[in-house]
Structure formats: C-alpha cells, structure tokens
C-alpha cells in the first residue's frame, strides 16, 4: 500500500510539468449530496445528510497532491422517517450529544482509469477511526466538475447500532454511502 502511494506520488510529480488542467478547490454545497441506503428487514431504505462541509483540492493531472475532507453534522440526518431520525440520534446509534460530527480526512487519491480515481482516508464516527477507500468518477465540464462515488460502510466498525440493534438480522451491517459533489475550479 505504502509503495503504491509512493509510486502515485512519484507519478504525480513526473506529470507536474505537463499538467495544464485546472485545479478544483471548492465544493458547491447546494449542488452536492451525501446519501445512503440501508437494508431493514431486507427492504432498502434511503436516507441522506442535510448538513456537511467538504474541503476538496483536486487537480486531475496531479491526483497525488489532492486532498479531500469533510465533516458532517450527524443530527442533520434523514434516515427515512421521523421516528428513525429520533432513534439514530440516541446512544445506541450515533450518540450525537457526545459525538455530533463524523469526519473524513483523505490520506491519498490514486487514479484507476480515465476519470476514475480512488480516495483513501480515515473516517471517524462516534470516536472510532477506520481506514476506508472509495472509488469515484470525476467529470470536468469547464470550470465545474461532477464527482460521484460510493462505498460500503460497515456500521459495526463504528459501533453504529449497539445493544438490541447489534444483530444484523433487522438492520444490515452494510450501509451503502453515496456522494455526489459539484466541484468548482479555482478562479
């Protein structure tokens, strides 16, 4: 893994003199979304977060220099129903009083293929930090770019849903997280 990161870093440095593409430095919050799908008794249920801050510095020509991070307000969740929203704020789930935010800080972004990349980093939820990796597509359109990605988060890794909820028979362990960002180029 480390070697690969170094290889990507070197590759990025080698490309630097040739790079002409714009660097994207901000995310337009009102055109971006952070949503998820979880399975409850075998039934997929959609949810999303209303409040999150994303920092994003990305030049497709220099992915090794890219940085991505976000913090999201866990209380801004819409988990599909009012009673679910109340429930997930509680101690067994996010315990938002003690841990109001979830954070992600990237450790590296590597290219996979044309317009496809993978971001790795550290996700912290409920005081627990785990390494995660998420593939995403990056489609520049002039001064803006669409970033679309998804990954599977296992709720047990972050103690999301403890006690009577820790059994995966009712709410599955795997939560599909989807992000859609509109990135703007540096002016």
């Amino acid at each position, binding site marked *: 893994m480390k070697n690969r990161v170094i290889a990507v870093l070197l590759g990025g440095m080698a490309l630097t003199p040739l790079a002409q593409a714009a660097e994207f430095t901000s995310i337009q919050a009102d055109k971006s979304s952070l949503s998820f799908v979880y399975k*409850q*008794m*075998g*039934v*997929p*249920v*959609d949810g999303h977060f209303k409040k999150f801050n994303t920092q994003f510095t990305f030049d497709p020509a220099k992915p090794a220099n890219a940085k991505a991070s976000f913090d999201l307000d866990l209380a801004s969740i819409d988990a*599909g*129903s009012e*009673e*679910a929203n*109340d*429930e997930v704020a509680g101690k067994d789930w996010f315990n938002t009083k003690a841990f109001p935010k979830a954070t992600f800080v990237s450790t590296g972004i590597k290219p996979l293929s044309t317009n496809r990349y993978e971001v790795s980093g550290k996700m912290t939820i409920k005081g627990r930090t785990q390494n995660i990796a998420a593939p995403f597509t990056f489609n520049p359109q002039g001064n803006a770019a669409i970033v679309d990605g998804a990954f599977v988060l296992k709720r047990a890794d972050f103690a999301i849903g403890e006690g*009577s*909820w820790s*059994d995966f*028979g*009712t*709410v599955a362990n795997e939560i599909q997280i989807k992000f859609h960002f509109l990135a703007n180029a540096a002016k």
Partner: protein
Amino acid sequence: MQESRYTLTAIALHWGMALLLITLFAVGFYMHELPLSPWKLQIYSWHKWAGVTAFMLVLIRLGWRIAHRPPELPWSMPKMMQLGAHIGHAILYLLMIAIPLSGWLMSSAKGFQTVYFGVLPIPDLLEKNKELGDLLRTLHMSLNYLLAALVVGHAGAAIKHHLIDKDDVLARMLSWCAR
C-alpha cells in the same frame, strides 16, 4: 344440483382467513404505538407479509366462490333479510380487498417498500409522500374498524340463525356439524 352446505375448500378458506384476519387486526392494533425497536421492525414486516398473504387468499376465495355457487339462504328468510345478508357479504369481500391494498399503498407512501418475506419486492405504486402516507394510515385504520364491526355483526347473525331461527346457516359453514 344445489349443495346444502359449503365445499370443504370454502370452509377451510373461511375459517383460515377468519383466524388470519383477527390475528392481523390484533397485531396491527398492538404494533402501531410501539416505540422503535428491532421487535417493532420485525412485527411490522410480519404484519405486511401476512397482509399480502391475506390478499392472495381473498383472491383465491373469490375465484372459488365464482366457480362454486354457495348454498342458497334458507327460504324461510324474509327477502329483505336475504338482500341485507348479500350486501353484508359483498362489503366484507370489498374490505378484505381494500384493507391490504390500503396497507400496501400506505407503506409505499411512507417510504418503505413491501418485500414479501424479505425476498420478493412488491412494486411501489406511490412515491414517498408524508401527507399521503398519514392519510392512508387513517384510511387503513378506519377500514379495519369498519371490518371489525361488520365481522361482529356477521358472527352475531350466524349465532342468531343457529340459536333463534334454528336453521342450518351456521352449520353449513362447519364441516362436522349437520342439522
């Protein structure tokens, strides 16, 4: 030839559905005020699966009824009473169809697809819509109270036939009891 009693299939469907619908009603009454818990999600799912089953059973039952004419009402019954009995039965059938449909639509409007036994997804006819979901919830409950009232009347009428009129109306729905 006109049979004097219901077929065994009709008898089995009648009493099987009676048991299923009473259980569904009791479970629905119990579950709707429960605080959110894994138990609540499980019991809601079982209620929906049983409701889908009841809907399929009522379709089979209607098909059977069309193919096998039920025995005539006793000739001693006044014509108005006979008409009342037929209307009552028609409303019972309508409610047995409308109640699971309203439950399914409510579930869709509340944003929870019905997946039969967690395996077979039943399409959502409605988009998620909170106001519509609440309206369908009220409809589902009201139709259930109406059905409960009609079932009480239906059972009362059967008992009256048996004890007061002393005819075979109840007996012909019981395979072991001949009059």
